[in-house]
């Protein structure tokens, strides 16, 4: 059966070259890089090469500014907790309403249990951050600002450079969760005002379980994990050697493919989006059309529910994901779509198609061919859909509880 993997914002396939490169480090050179014998092989050296590759991808000045972690979530938590620890007199945090749970649930915890005041900056219908609200929230009380570089659900890109400069004026640290942006947007930390940046390996064809945190030299820092000397004492714990080596190679390849992502992948995404929207009425694309990741298409299909769409797509070999939280057991639609004020009629039926450099034209064609009949099939089952489209007027479907 032909298939289409359209869920690259969730995770990517490990590049075969990456896999091949790291296998010997499981089977032959399995020594601890800290050990004084040859089973460690050239592992120590390979780790430093990997660090240099990540350094190049981010445009970082010093290799010591890169700290390897286990994932994006760990990087996010480390960054925020460190920023708070070094500035105990500043008791406020600024973030956005559309952040990843790695930031939002930490902020919620800090608010409820540690007494921090958290400013959640709203977004508009296109997912664009309110710069007015941001400017108003900034003050000398703010310890750290954490704003995602690009949104995982809609691909909307935030003006993080401008926001970082504004934070600097108030003496606040600026962190960005760039998990979705790294490898798709050219970065140059040397000329940036960003103090800390999180990335995750498995979003760019490295395996799961490896991430990194960039910390600008001169930024005071407190580790989250204490123990050994690894990562210069800033992240204790035996190095995930295979993960780090994989991330290094994946970073090299991401840099090589940056232009491809922004031309070929972008064109495929645009074709997929236009192809579906041309055939399906009462459907629309989400996010900021001007500032959006090249690989992400978020499409709302009105009057039907996302999980049902995903199950039918999956049956014809298409992997995508939904903005609907029914997939997570709660009945609330995604916090990102709700923050954007996407109506309930559409938020529940939102599907995210996320491409990668591995996506083929045939896959896009499969999605364009298979999606419209699935939407039609579910709408025929929907009490909100009649023979001629939606029925939400007069003697409309009026259930007992709301």
């Amino acid at each position, binding site marked *: 059966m032909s298939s289409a993997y359209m869920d690259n914002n969730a995770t990517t396939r490990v590049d075969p070259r990456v896999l091949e490169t790291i296998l010997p480090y499981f089977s032959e050179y399995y020594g601890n890089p800290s050990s004084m014998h040859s089973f460690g092989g050239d592992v120590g050296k390979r780790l430093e090469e990997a660090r240099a590759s990540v350094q190049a991808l981010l445009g970082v000045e010093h290799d010591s500014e890169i700290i390897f972690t286990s994932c994006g979530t760990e990087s996010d938590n480390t960054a925020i907790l460190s920023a708070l620890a070094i500035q105990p007199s500043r008791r406020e945090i600024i973030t956005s309403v559309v952040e990843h749970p790695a930031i939002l649930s930490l902020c919620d915890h800090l608010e*409820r249990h540690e007494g921090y005041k958290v400013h959640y900056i709203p977004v508009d219908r296109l997912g664009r951050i309110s710069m007015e609200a941001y400017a108003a929230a900034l003050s000398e009380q703010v310890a750290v600002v954490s704003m995602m570089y690009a949104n995982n659900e809609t691909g909307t890109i935030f003006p993080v450079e401008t926001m970082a400069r504004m934070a600097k004026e108030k003496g606040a640290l600026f962190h960005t969760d760039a998990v979705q942006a790294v490898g798709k947007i050219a970065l140059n930390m040397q000329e940036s005002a960003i103090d800390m940046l999180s990335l995750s390996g498995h979003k760019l064809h490295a395996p799961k379980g490896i991430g990194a945190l960039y910390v600008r030299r001169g930024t005071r820092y407190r580790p989250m994990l204490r123990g050994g000397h690894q990562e210069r004492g800033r992240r204790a714990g035996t190095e995930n050697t295979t993960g780090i080596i994989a991330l290094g190679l994946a970073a090299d390849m991401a840099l090589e493919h940056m232009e491809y992502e922004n031309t070929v992948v972008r064109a495929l995404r645009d074709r997929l989006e236009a192809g579906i929207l041309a055939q399906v009425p009462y459907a629309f694309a989400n996010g900021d059309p001007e500032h959006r990741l090249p690989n992400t298409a978020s499409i709302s299909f009105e*009057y*039907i*529910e*996302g*999980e*049902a769409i995903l*199950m*039918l797509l*999956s*049956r014809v070999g298409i992997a995508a994901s939904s903005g*609907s*939280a*029914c*997939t*997570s*057991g*709660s*009945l*609330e*639609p995604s916090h990102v779509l709700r923050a954007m004020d996407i109506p*309930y*009629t559409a938020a*529940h039926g939102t599907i995210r198609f996320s491409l990668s450099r591995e996506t083929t034209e045939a896959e896009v064609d499969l999605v364009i061919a298979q999606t419209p009949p699935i939407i039609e099939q579910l709408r*025929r*089952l*929907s*009490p*909100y859909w009649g023979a001629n489209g939606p029925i939400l007027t007069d003697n409309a*479907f*009026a*259930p*007992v*509880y*709301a």
Partner: protein
Amino acid sequence: MWDYTDKVKDLFFNPKNTGVLEEANAVGEVGSISCGDALRLMLKVDPDTDVILDARFQTFGCGSAIASSSALTELIKGKTLDEALKITNQDIAEFLGGLPPEKMHCSVMGAEALHAAIANYRGEEWADDHEEGALVCKCFAIDSALIEKVARENHLSTVEEITFYTKAGGGCQSCHEQIEDILAAVNGSAPLPVVAAKPAAKAAPAPMTMVQKIQKISAVIDEMRPQFQMDGGNIELVDVDGDTVMVAMSGSCMNCQSSGITISGIQERLMLTLGRPVRVVPASMPQAVGV
């Protein structure tokens, strides 16, 4: 992806009895688009025999919502209204070979739509007393709304008490932090420290035989009956299944707005008497008496 049974998948991919039933004379509509699931159940009832001749549905919702709706229509076709009313959400879930705890609400929605449709046919008002929150205890499928309600009504302040009253937190215990947070919100204070040791006097009750248990439950209900009779109603013990006690309420209790509270009162008394968590559920919508 959810671990759906083959039956759920089959009834989702090939749903039975879908679409508008033109000659329907009973319609039940529950849910809403903001909740993420909504169901319209349409029945064709034989006015002479009360037999459900045909049933169809339209559902906005996830895979298990559509499968539950489909299962419901299969379960009720050919039954009389009174027989159909005995179908519970558990029956729907069983018909599907089980549902993940996070998805049990889909079967609840099915049972509610059925009650709403029959109330519609009989010209009665059907009021929903059901509120849903985020799932907290995955072992016993207890959501935040229930925990909050029970905590508030019974002035509970510890996780232990919540487990005693609702079972939530009594399984893998991973949700204790969430329960503490709910308690803190309800009681408007910082979470209380977990009580480490139980007082020695509160030793585990001696094991009871099923007969002893039923006798005790029966005694409590007999004891409480006069209160119901004073209000023009009645209550009967129908069955005991493990820690689930099924009761039938009749007369004015039947449509009583506060029947939910009545049930929680009985439940409270039973737990005190038995010294273990029990759940009291209405056995079915009782038959209308004397009409």
